C-alpha cells in the first residue's frame, strides 16, 4: 500500500543571490567573515570561560540541571570552536553527547571527569599530546556509555 505524496518544484528564493555577475566574491566574503570572528574572539573567550566555570560547578553536584549542562557544553562547542579553542570545543561536544546519552540519569564520576577535563583544556598548560590523549579517552568513554545506554532515536 502506498500513501499519497505530492512532488513539486519550489521557488528557491536564494537562487537569485548566488552565482551572480556582480557581487561579493566567495573569497572576499569568507575573508570578511574570518575577520568578524577574529574581532569577536576576546568576547567569545570570556563567555566560554564563564561557561566552563559553571560546568565545573554544576558537575560537582549530585543531581545537576542537565538541560543547563547540555546548553553550556553546546555553547563551549560552538563558541569555543569559533574562538579557536579547538580542543576545548571538542571536549564540549563530547560532554554534550555524554549528557545526552545519560538521559535522565546522572553519573557523578563522569561529571567530575568532564569538569576536570574542561577546566584543564581551558588552562591549556598540559602538553598537546596529553590533551589529545585525554580527549581520546573521553571519546572511548562515550562509546562505552552509548553501548550501556542506547540513545532513543
Amino acid at each position, binding site marked *: 500500500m*502506498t*500513501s*499519497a*505524496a*505530492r*512532488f*513539486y*518544484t*519550489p*521557488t*528557491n*528564493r*536564494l*537562487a*537569485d*543571490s*548566488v*552565482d*551572480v*555577475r*556582480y*557581487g*561579493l*566574491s*566567495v*573569497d572576499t*566574503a*569568507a575573508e*570578511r*567573515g*574570518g*575577520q*568578524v*570572528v577574529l574581532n*569577536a574572539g576576546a*568576547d*567569545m573567550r570570556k*563567555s566560554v570561560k564563564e561557561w566552563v566555570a559553571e560546568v565545573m560547578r554544576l558537575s560537582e553536584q549530585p543531581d545537576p540541571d542537565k*538541560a543547563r549542562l*547540555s*546548553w553550556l557544553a*553546546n*555553547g563551549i*562547542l*560552538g*563558541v*569555543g*570552536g*569559533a574562538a579557536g579553542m*579547538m580542543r576545548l*570545543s571538542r571536549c564540549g*561536544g563530547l560532554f*554534550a*553527547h555524554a549528557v*545526552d546519552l545519560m538521559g535522565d540519569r546522572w553519573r557523578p564520576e563522569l561529571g567530575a571527569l568532564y569538569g576536570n577535563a574542561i577546566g584543564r583544556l581551558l588552562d591549556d598548560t598540559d602538553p598537546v599530546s596529553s590533551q589529545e590523549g585525554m580527549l581520546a579517552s573521553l571519546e572511548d568513554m562515550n562509546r562505552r556509555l552509548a553501548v550501556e545506554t542506547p*540513545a532513543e*532515536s
Partner: protein
Amino acid sequence: MNASQSPVAASAKVDLSRARALLFDDNQVHLNLLSNVLTSFDLRRQTKVENLRDAKASAGGAEFDLVLVEAALAKGVGFEFIRWLRREGPEFNRATSVLVVTSGTQLDQVHKARDSGANFVLAKPITPPVLLQRIIWLGRDKRLFVEAEGYCGPDRRFKAFGPPVGTKGRRHDDLNFKIGAAVEPNMSQNEIDMLMKPTRVKL
C-alpha cells in the same frame, strides 16, 4: 543532505544584500556570532529569535530566504519549528531553505534534521567559509519538494535511480518499469555504422 553538489569556486560571486534570514538559537553569543558573520556576507536583513513562539511569529510575518536553526534547542523545539514551518507555516515560507546547525557528528541529530524537513546540516564549530559554501549550495539546490503524510520537505533522495523494483513510481518523471514492444524493425549494423561514420559532404 550530503555534499554531492558542485564545488564552489573562489571567484564565484554572491549578492545576499536583498536576502532575508531568520536565525533561531537560544545561545545569544552564538546567535550574535552567526548574525555578524552573515552581515559580513552582506546579508543584513535578519531576524534573531531565541524561542519557538517568536520563531513562529516571525515566520508568519515576513518572507524569509534562509532559516538557520540550532539543533540542540531544549526539548527539540528547533526540529518542531522546522516541521511546523513545512506543514503549517505560511505558504510563502513553507519551502524556504533551512540550514540546521548541529553539535557535531551525532547521527541521530542529522537524521532528526533531515526528517523534520531541513535542507542541510552544518556541524559546529561554524567557520565563515563553510557557512558561505552551504548558503551557496542552498541557492543552487534544485531538489523537488515532497508533501506526504509522514514527511514534508526537500526530496531526500539526492540521486534518482527510479522507483524500487516491483513498485510504481510516485515522481511525475518516473518511467514505467515495463518496456513497450518495438514498433519498427531493428536497425541493421550498416545503419548503426552510418550514424557514427564521418561522411564527407559537399557544401
